[in-house]
């Protein structure tokens, strides 16, 4: 795990992304006439990667990570009120290209849905298209969805001799919420829970 050297294409890519994100963040609310300005002064949900590890063996590329975060007040409120929330972990593997945008050779996504069941006071975590499990406490439930180990993000055959890197994003995905709610919470820092990491594969 060497720290990522400054790389032109990487920077370019991230700039583009940042632009896109900024555009969407600025445009969408402002187009809705900014009727209700985003409430300021609310502490943004903080998230940090407590563990992040990319390993490559003969089978492929594996990722271990753990995210530690605290939900913002608004998000917690919504969770308690039995609104389903979605957390998304996304890993992309890129191949360096000096002459063009770097080529994405793999893209894997994991989505978790967490919902509070007031009838039984349990938290139910469902990996989309997969298993679901009940947890009696929120911490347990969040713990379950905030980490993965040996997550295979690329096959060995997809990689070649060149230089590769992984872009990892873990976020609270509000785009999967109902649209009116998206519009309602857009621009609220409570709901902006995102952590990113870019890492070279050696």
């Amino acid at each position, binding site marked *: 795990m060497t720290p990522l050297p400054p790389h032109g294409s990487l920077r370019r890519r991230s700039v583009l992304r940042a632009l896109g994100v900024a555009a969407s963040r600025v445009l969408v609310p402002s*187009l*809705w*006439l900014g*009727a*209700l300005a985003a409430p300021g002064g609310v502490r943004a949900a903080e998230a940090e990667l407590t563990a992040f590890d990319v390993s490559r063996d003969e089978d492929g590329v594996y990722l271990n990570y753990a995210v530690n975060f605290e939900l913002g007040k608004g998000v917690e*409120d*919504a969770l308690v*009120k*039995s*609104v*389903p929330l979605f957390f998304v972990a996304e890993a992309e593997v890129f191949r360096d290209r000096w002459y063009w945008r770097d080529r994405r050779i793999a893209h894997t996504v994991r989505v978790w849905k967490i*919902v509070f*069941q*007031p*009838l*039984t*006071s349990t938290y*139910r975590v*469902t990996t989309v298209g997969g298993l*679901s499990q*009940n947890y009696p406490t929120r911490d347990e439930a969040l713990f379950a969805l905030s980490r993965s180990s040996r997550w295979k993000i690329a096959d060995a055959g997809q990689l070649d001799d060149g230089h590769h890197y992984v872009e990892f994003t873990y976020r609270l995905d509000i785009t999967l919420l*109902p*649209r*009116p*709610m*998206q*519009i*309602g*919470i*857009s621009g609220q820092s409570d709901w902006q829970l995102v952590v990113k990491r870019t890492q070279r594969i050696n």
Partner: protein
Amino acid sequence: MSDEPRVGAPAPGPAPLPGRSSRWAWVISTLAAVGAGLVLAFLLGVATNNPALYERHYVWLFWVNVALASTLVAVIVVAGVRLLWRVSRGRFGSRLLLKLAAIFALVGILPGVLIYTVSYQFVSRSIESWFDVKVEGALDAGLNLGRGTIDAIVSDLATKTRLAAERLGESASSAEPLSLERLREQLSAKEIAVVGSAGQTLLATGSATSGLMPERVPPQMLRQARTQRVVSQAEGLDEDASAAANASARVRAVAVIPSSNFALGEQERFLVVTQSIAPGLAANALAVTNAYREYQQRALARSGLRKMYIGTLTLALVLAVFGALLLAIALSNQLAQPLLLLAEGVAQVARGDLSSKAVFKSRDELGGLTRSFAEMTTQLSEARELVHKSVVQVEGARANLQTILDNLTAGVIVFDRNGAIDTVNPGATRILKLPLSAYKGRRLDEVAGLDGFAQAVWQRFELHAESPEAGERDHWQDSFELQIGGSGGREPESITLLVRGAAMPQGARLMVFDDITELVSAQRVEAWSEVARRLAHEIKNPLTPIQLSAERLQQKLGGKLAGADQGMLDRSVTTIVNQVQAMKALVNEFRDYARLPASSFDSIDVNALVVEVLGLYGAAQEAGRLHAELAAGLPAIVGDGTQLRQVIHNLVQNALDAVAEQADGRVRIVTEAVRNESGEARAVRLLVVDNGPGFSEKVLKRAFEPYVTTKKKGTGLGLAVVKKIADEHGARVRVANLGASGEDAGDAAPGSARGAQVSLSFSKLAATVRVAANEAVAESRLH
């Protein structure tokens, strides 16, 4: 709405404007229709509350709307800026356009804003009203009710299970299927099992036994049961569970079976009791949960929903307003177009531009108006063209008339109603030798020297107006003798005018006059010829007998008389004979003048002729009074030798006579060829020049009339004969006085004349004009 093709384009065809504006109207209406359709679809998506459809189309609909709105904004901004620019530039018609557009825009925007305001209030209020505290409370209560019921079941089952487990432990007759079955009936449980510490089923009874093995108890539950003696929980009430799963909603309780005999190694056992929850209860509880969740979700999304509705409304308003604005501009364009067309046409007509006007192609009154205007303009233009044409014709006619007038030899004067001079032609000026054109607008009798003439003419006009003579219905004719040119020390000149007068429309009067002085002179010549001929005839007849009688008297009486008588007789007879001879000569001269012998034209060398004639004047030549300067290489002319000989003779004699009394009198006879620019001989000129006293002006004017002479002796027929012969030869005769320098000074005062000159120009040359000569011959023979 591009500017570009400026209006100043030539060839104003029938209005490109309507086509363009209708195209624009099409574009705009299409745009508006698309926009309205999109808005409707958007509203439909919202209204039907079909989240799938709505979410699938939301984004692109939104962006398309935004794009449309931006396009509309751009178009409106462009159109508005253009309109304002035109207004500021004072472009014609822009104010009307602006006014119309403002009116239409107001009509479009006001209702839109009103509806928007009402809708805004409605949306914000109604969304708030959905989220009622009571509803929320009721949902909470329902949820709590369900939870309470399930909790009660759970705790009840826990208690029962604990008791049953204790009983099982005490009875020690452990694990008999029968007692287990009895226990299941007691508890009305669905399934009862005894499991080992690892969760393995030791003994089971219940509905599940017939089929599958009972569900394995999670170790976590066992662990809890171990510490808390009993644990129970509801299962199968998950939010994502299907309806079928709801039927399997159940409560499971796990209790430790206490061991009575504390034998070592004896296995720890658990009693697991599963009791199903009534499906109705489970379904209701889940329904309440779902409703609660939905409600909370919506409550959270409330502001977003409000924003969305209002955003949609605003977008719709913006689209509607922009559409209204665009339509306003387009409509006002449409409406103003014919008016502008008309106004511009009027302005053009006012400027005098009558070119064909654009027509607005529509079937309404405005179109008709423009059409009528165009027709009117065309008619006006045609009328003007006609007027112009006739003016040109009149101008042409006037120019014609003017040319004719200017080139008339006759004098023409037009008097207006008041008798003032209105029009004078150059002929009048020439004839009267007065600058008559300077007297325009004044009466004729104000012209110096013409007062008598004017009065006479005027009397004649009055007379004609009052009592027209028979045979002169519309004009009168008279001849007047007029003395002119008397001023400036000159001798007044007498001219004869033949004046014809006529009345013109509007009281104007026309006077046409001719200088017939020369005609009168010619008539005089003619009369003289006649007189001479008759006199010659009448006188000549008795002359011979007279002479013969006188000679006979002398013959008979010659020897019979004596002395003085004889002398007297001889003298008398001699006198008679001489006088008769003289008279004969005179008569012959008259006869010659009156009846020149018929000319016989031939090719003549003028020089030879001159030399021949000068042979008769040997004495004068020797005395140095006469000499000839003959140019060499003269072309031959066509003429009668005999007559020309006489001409030369007459001229030379005249000239010698004129200088006879001067000691230094000299006569030159000159011949020369007159050549044109290319050096070709055009005429032959014969000049006889003397340095005598010259002609008096009176004589000069009438030099060629018989009996006009400066000489004391002579008949005065010399120059008359010359003129006559020259006329027959088609030659031009000019008589002039010479100034002191010897130059031609015809206008010089007679006192200053230093000689006279007679020139004869023969333009009929033998070599070139043979045919003309023949014609002349024929002509002369006919006479």
